[in-house]
């Protein structure tokens, strides 16, 4: 029932987005968001990217966005509507828009498509993603230094490779400092439900964790951490306002420069379908300022960040054992992107059973 209602709302919203007739010389860049552009997290980060396109390319470009588009058939309607309205390039920003974007790309060969965090490409469909796990590795290191109890709480959303990758990277980072470091994982089974995320945070604190991290999008866990006097990491956007004394750092998605580059490429006629997976080095994600931690921890975090940027350190480099104790990566061996993109098991030390 709820899903149906959300779908109806979204359809109504999608229909209400007005699309002014564009002057011929302007390039039209269009964006599809799964959430609202003011969600304070994931979709907002994409919208900030869109605003940067507006700012940097000024009169030469016109941007259009559709927000609150549910994954599924509604997404296809929204994307095709944009394609028909004269968009030169369409960014579909959520993983769940994948099949709809693929279908639309086949239908409109003259329009360029880019699918965020996906993996299916074609002549006029590229994919782009960010190596969020690089940031989570740094978070893990900080957590292991800051935590007195040696246990962190991890509020996870859905058991998809992206999230599993994050949990593993966090654990590996923590183990590089304290080999016995533990994480407690709670699956909220939602991306965005402030109250439920707050409950999960309270439960984790009650069970004795003294550092919290989240792969859900609201600032509620940060608020709970602030109330209970422990530390926490931000997700997708800087959440320092929710916990000025609480936030250690956080992963901040910065899609702006990438969007500007790709829209420019469309203008120049140099756009090609690509499979982009950028990281800290390319600036597609940034670490929020390192705050509320001792200087030596901050120095360690900065050093790690520099090493990841230079390529000297790759978080998924052996020796790494799987959770069940079997070997995954030999010493010095790094996981390839295809393996990471389909990751469906934990590394040793994660105190949770991965939902299958």
């Amino acid at each position, binding site marked *: *029932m*709820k899903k149906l*209602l*959300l779908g*109806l*709302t979204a359809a*109504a*919203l999608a229909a209400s987005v007005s699309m002014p007739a564009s002057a011929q010389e302007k390039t039209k860049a269009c964006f599809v968001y799964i*959430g*609202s552009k*003011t*969600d*304070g997290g994931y979709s907002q980060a994409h919208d900030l990217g869109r605003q940067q396109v507006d700012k940097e390319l000024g009169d030469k470009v016109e941007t259009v966005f559709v927000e609150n588009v549910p994954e599924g058939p509604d997404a296809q309607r929204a994307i095709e509507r944009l394609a028909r309205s004269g968009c030169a390039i369409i960014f579909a920003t959520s993983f769940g828009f994948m099949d709809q974007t693929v279908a639309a790309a086949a239908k409109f060969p003259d329009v360029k498509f880019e699918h965020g965090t996906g993996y299916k490409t074609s002549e006029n469909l590229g994919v782009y993603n960010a190596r969020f796990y690089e940031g989570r590795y740094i978070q893990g290191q900080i957590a292991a230094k800051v935590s007195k109890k040696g246990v962190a*709480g991890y509020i996870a959303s859905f*058991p998809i490779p992206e999230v599993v990758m994050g949990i593993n990277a966090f654990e590996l980072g923590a183990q590089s400092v304290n080999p016995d470091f533990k994480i*407690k*994982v*709670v*699956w909220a*089974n*939602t991306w*965005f*439900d*402030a*109250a*439920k*995320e*707050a*409950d*999960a945070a*309270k*439960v*984790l604190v*009650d*069970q004795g964790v003294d550092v919290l991290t989240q792969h859900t999008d*609201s*600032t*509620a866990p940060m*608020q709970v951490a602030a109330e209970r006097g422990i530390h926490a990491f931000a997700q997708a956007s800087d959440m320092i*306002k*929710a916990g000025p004394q609480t936030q250690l750092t956080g992963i901040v998605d910065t899609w702006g420069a990438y969007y500007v580059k790709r829209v420019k490429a469309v203008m120049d006629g140099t756009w090609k379908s690509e499979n982009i997976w950028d990281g800290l080095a390319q600036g597609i994600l940034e670490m929020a300022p390192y705050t509320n931690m001792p200087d030596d921890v901050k120095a360690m975090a900065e050093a790690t960040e520099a090493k990841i940027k230079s390529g000297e350190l790759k978080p998924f480099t052996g020796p790494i054992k799987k959770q069940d104790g079997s070997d995954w990566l030999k010493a010095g061996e790094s996981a390839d992107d295809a393996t990471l993109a389909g990751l469906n098991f934990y590394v040793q030390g994660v*105190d*949770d*059973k991965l*939902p*299958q």
Partner: protein
Amino acid sequence: MLIAESILLTIATAATPLLLAAIGELVVERSGVLNLGVEGMMVMGAVCGFAAAALTGSPWIGMLAAILAGVLFSLLFGFLTLTIATNQVATGLSLTLLGLGLSSMIGEAFVGSPGVKLPTLANGIAEIPLVGQPVAGLLDLLAGIPLIGRVLFAQDPIFYISIALVIGVTWFLFHTRAGLVLRSVGDNHASAHALGTNVIGIRYLAVMFGGACAGLAGGHLSLVYTPQWVENMTAGRGWIALALVVFASWRPLRLLAGAYLFGAVSIGQLHAQALGLGIPSQLLSSLPYLATVLVLVLISRNRRLTMMNTPASLGQPFVPDR
């Protein structure tokens, strides 16, 4: 603070908005009106409560604004379904859709603004001149009782309101003449009308009470539970409240039990996950709903009892003959 005590507090916080929204809807349905707009009224209460608190700096004004928003929104429903007798199901659903959209629009300016949290009972009372301080001191003392002290004496005011409402509604419905009249309107509006009862007037009052409760439930979300505004922050709790009313077979005390059972299972499953018991999280997440279905099946086995409690005129529009 003991872990058990902390768990009890978390459960109470999770159950309070459900209980509030549901107790309001219970009275509405007892008067024979089915308002499926609970989610919409709740989310309007959440956004207006947050906005008023953020603008004035006073969570108390926020609380009042939340109630007022719920009442105003319910009046829209009342006008449509009672005065011009539209279909209640369709009107209620559109109220929810309207509420979700309108609240996003109103709330856009408030996303990310720092929240104002409603103080606990003791801290709230301490603000009252003269008698406030000693009473607050006594409450603080009582809150020191192990296990139940904080649960009983150190929560937010809306928690106490929710419990008081359950007791008040029980008394009103089953021990006062006015309550009897309200139930008779819900059971057979034609007979009640023939006896000279103002059916539409009573239903208006019931709908407004439902709106006030749903608005306050929303205010609890944005002022106590998670003091912030995010779009669609009710996340389906209005629908759960609606289900709880049926679950409780329209009896207030069963509603209390239902809301706390739901809260306890919701929080319990998170604890089970954090303990790493190895039970699949999808199963655990669905436990609160499974528990609700199970209880519904058990209580609806006795068809006669269920029929006796269900308001017979529920959902039927009333158009008096002229």
